């Protein structure tokens, strides 16, 4: 699946993501938007626990199945709160990660310019943007019994 991490409706960057009102107005924890066809392919229903796995890492979250998603693409809104409702992963036995667990930063030429303010690259810094936002990952339906 093409794995995208767009901006969330329920937060500004990572702020307010853990606000109880915001969580009560959404799905109350990390959620992965996917198309009905893809959900059917892995036999996942709406709100089932799923795992997003690739060579970079793993994310555990619940599925939101909607026809508004095109086939072959999943959305995991970025910076969903990693201390809220993230169970252990079936794949690794460890905590189920965040949206960036499945991404990896590749160096691109603009990162190497350096030497001045916005041209210098550092993680989480207002410099040249990373290019970790377009990855490929496998999505699996996992056991619905989760442990924390």
């Amino acid at each position, binding site marked *: 699946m093409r794995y995208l991490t767009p901006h969330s409706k329920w937060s500004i960057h990572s702020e307010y993501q853990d606000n109880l009102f915001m969580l009560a107005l959404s799905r*109350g924890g990390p959620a992965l938007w996917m198309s009905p066809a893809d959900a059917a392919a892995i036999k996942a229903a709406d709100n089932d626990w799923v795992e997003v796995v690739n060579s970079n890492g793993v994310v555990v979250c619940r599925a939101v199945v909607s026809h508004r998603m095109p086939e072959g693409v999943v959305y995991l809104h970025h910076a969903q709160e990693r201390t809220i409702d993230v169970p252990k992963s079936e794949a690794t036995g460890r905590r189920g990660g965040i949206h960036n667990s499945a991404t990896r930063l590749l160096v691109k030429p603009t990162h190497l310019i350096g030497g001045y303010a916005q041209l210098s690259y550092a993680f989480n810094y207002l410099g040249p943007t990373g290019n970790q936002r377009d990855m490929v990952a496998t999505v699996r339906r996992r056991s619905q019994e989760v442990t924390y």
Partner: protein
Amino acid sequence: MRVMAQVGMVMNLDKCIGCHTCSVTCKQAWTNRAGVEYVWFNNVETRPGQGYPRRYDDQDTWRGGWTLDRKGRLRLKAGGRVKKLLTLFSSPVQPKLADYYEPWTYDYENLVNAPLGDDFPVARPKSLITGEDTKVTWSANWDDNLGGATEMGHLDPVIEKIRRESEERIAFEFEQTFMFYLPRICEHCLNPSCMASCPSGAIYKRLEDGIVLVDQDRCRGWRQCVTGCPYKKIYFNHKTGKAEKCTLCYPRLEVGQPTVCSETCVGRLRYLGLFLYDADAVTAAATVADERDLYEAQLDLLLDPTDPAVVAAARRDGIQDDWLDAARRSPVYALAKTYRVALPLHPEYRTMPMVWYVPPLSPVVDLLREQGHDAEDRGTLFGAIDALRIPVSYLAELFTAGDADVVVGVLQRLAAMRAYLRDITLGRDPDDAIPASVGMDPEQVYAMYRLLALAKYDERYVIPVAHAEDARALDATADEARCSLDYDEGPGMYASGAFGEASGRPVPVAVETFHALKQRQSSEGFVEPGATSGRVNLLNWDGVGVPHGLFPEHGQGEPT
């Protein structure tokens, strides 16, 4: 004619981006308390969708609102007084907590108290009701942005109805073709069925501005109002055992400020202002035989505040000049009656709701744009409004009891406005045939455009300040004058506590001190007439000093 004033709201759905700022600020202001964790006086639901609480607009199930009996008279859909009396102690027809949602919190303690380990600790969900671990399976806004609509979209009662009844049922693709947000608050109806449902007479409609409120002293927690309200906008506080509802932020309105939801609305889609209406005509309007005539009947109730006869009658009925002036500048009157672009939500419930909606043109425009058309072109737009029967019939089920022609008319006026204004914006000669094609003149279209697109704060919110000097008189009448349906044998006639003492007026509460009470009860002597003068009402004590009577006089009340 008896002229009354009503504060009304209009929401322009084309502008709603579904950000829920109104919901959050309302919740923070009013229901951020124990007992009402699950309560959102203001909520925003994605349509098509089930809404909050789930499927609330399915009145075959919830039996809210009014219906006409065989003689054509208004009756509560949930049953009249006899049925209410017989079933008073069970109120089975109302949403369960699971239909709203089971509120939850998270085990935040674990974040600081978890034992050392390889993994960082997380807070898992805990039910706020039972305190047990839980999996979140439904929330106040579960189907946001059509999430889960593939599995649950067909559960929307409006979709169900269209599939059952209309010729579009075969071509059911429309949850895949459009989406809009529907913010909802209490409708502050002219003919409130919640008020008529209350056995205790605890719900009242304010004489001066028509706001519907629950008297917390008189409410006995029968929960009949929850059933009675077809919009499910009365909620049961499970801690206090009383009903609570949207107050239209009356403490703010009284000083001329808009409601919290309006004030904080990011899209500036809410309008607040006055309607003048004929209170004597409400029952007749709510009783019209064909439910598709209810929208027109409701419009006919609204009186023209520039009509000298209306102004004279309003003055006679005690409406002051600053309120009449506000009524003339009212944006809600302009949108509902002058331009006829605002529609009531579910008029078929016969409650005469006073929160109106400008239906969204965007489903049509979006679709046109996706198909590569010029979505602002008048010809294309008008053709599409006629051709796209599915979004139109959905909107009609929400706003006009299924009368698609009314919705088409409104959408055409909005489309004409876009097309006409585009010529002006692009510096082309405006085409006066466009306004004429929808029965408007160019000035009117421009004024409507100003109001919908540009209106500033004090044009969107025209709220006259409450008259404090009238407060005492209003207070005195508050018990008798409840609503236009409170005549003898009328459906709203519950003033005298029909269900015994507990349903009657509240007994005034007197707070006596422990000492005064003990002395009075244990004293062997007769109570002297002056002996009670030492009682003190602690409710009025500001905590400074020791008021007379708080402690017994020295020598009195000593144990013998």
